[in-house]
């Protein structure tokens, strides 16, 4: 039973443009959301997070938006760079520090 869904397996964007990665969740008890980035043969690395009391969190080129009523979050990367090419996982938990439920990931390719 997939509680966190990333419906786009892949996304291709030109360098300098905006990348938008989407994520939906079904469990209304989730209140902490994270994005992880994964390069081949490496473990996932933390990118950015947001708690349910906020609807936006920004860190440099990365912004996460949360729409609780729609149970939807998105990650915006602007401007996109070739080094951003990786698999991005959306994850959620019922509390900060609790085990994470992951989506299947979206593979982002940023082309020069």
């Amino acid at each position, binding site marked *: 039973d997939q509680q966190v869904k990333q419906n786009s397996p892949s996304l291709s964007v030109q360098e300098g443009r905006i990348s938008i990665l989407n994520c939906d969740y079904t469990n209304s008890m989730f209140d902490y959301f994270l994005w992880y980035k994964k390069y081949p043969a*490496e*473990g*996932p690395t933390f990118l950015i997070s947001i708690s349910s009391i906020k609807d936006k969190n920004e860190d440099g080129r990365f912004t996460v938006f949360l729409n609780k009523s729609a149970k939807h979050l998105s990650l915006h990367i602007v401007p996109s760079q070739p080094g951003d090419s990786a698999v991005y*996982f959306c994850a959620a938990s019922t509390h*900060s520090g609790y*085990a*994470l439920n*992951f*989506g299947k990931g979206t593979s982002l390719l940023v082309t020069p």
Partner: protein
Amino acid sequence: EAGVAQSPRYKIIEKRQSVAFWCNPISGHATLYWYQQILGQGPKLLIQFQNNGVVDDSQLPKDRFSAERLKGVDSTLKIQPAKLEDSAVYLCASSPLGGELFFGEGSRLTVL
């Protein structure tokens, strides 16, 4: 600061054989997780430890998988006997109380 260490990085075994994976978390991190990532899917939690106690092992196939965290530091995950469907990357992660998860590079298991 040293990251999460895992070994071995790669392991190939035949079905019905046994295998063990080792994880050394970041120093001082109380919580340790084992995740299973099958190709094309997101990481799935197998077991969560808080110090040397089990917090959640509801998704661990206990007929063949076992894990322990002696003295609340290192952890081992064992599979015995292995099945073909156990082929996956086994990710260890650790976190301080209430913090983000830090992942190791993973141990890739191939069962023939």
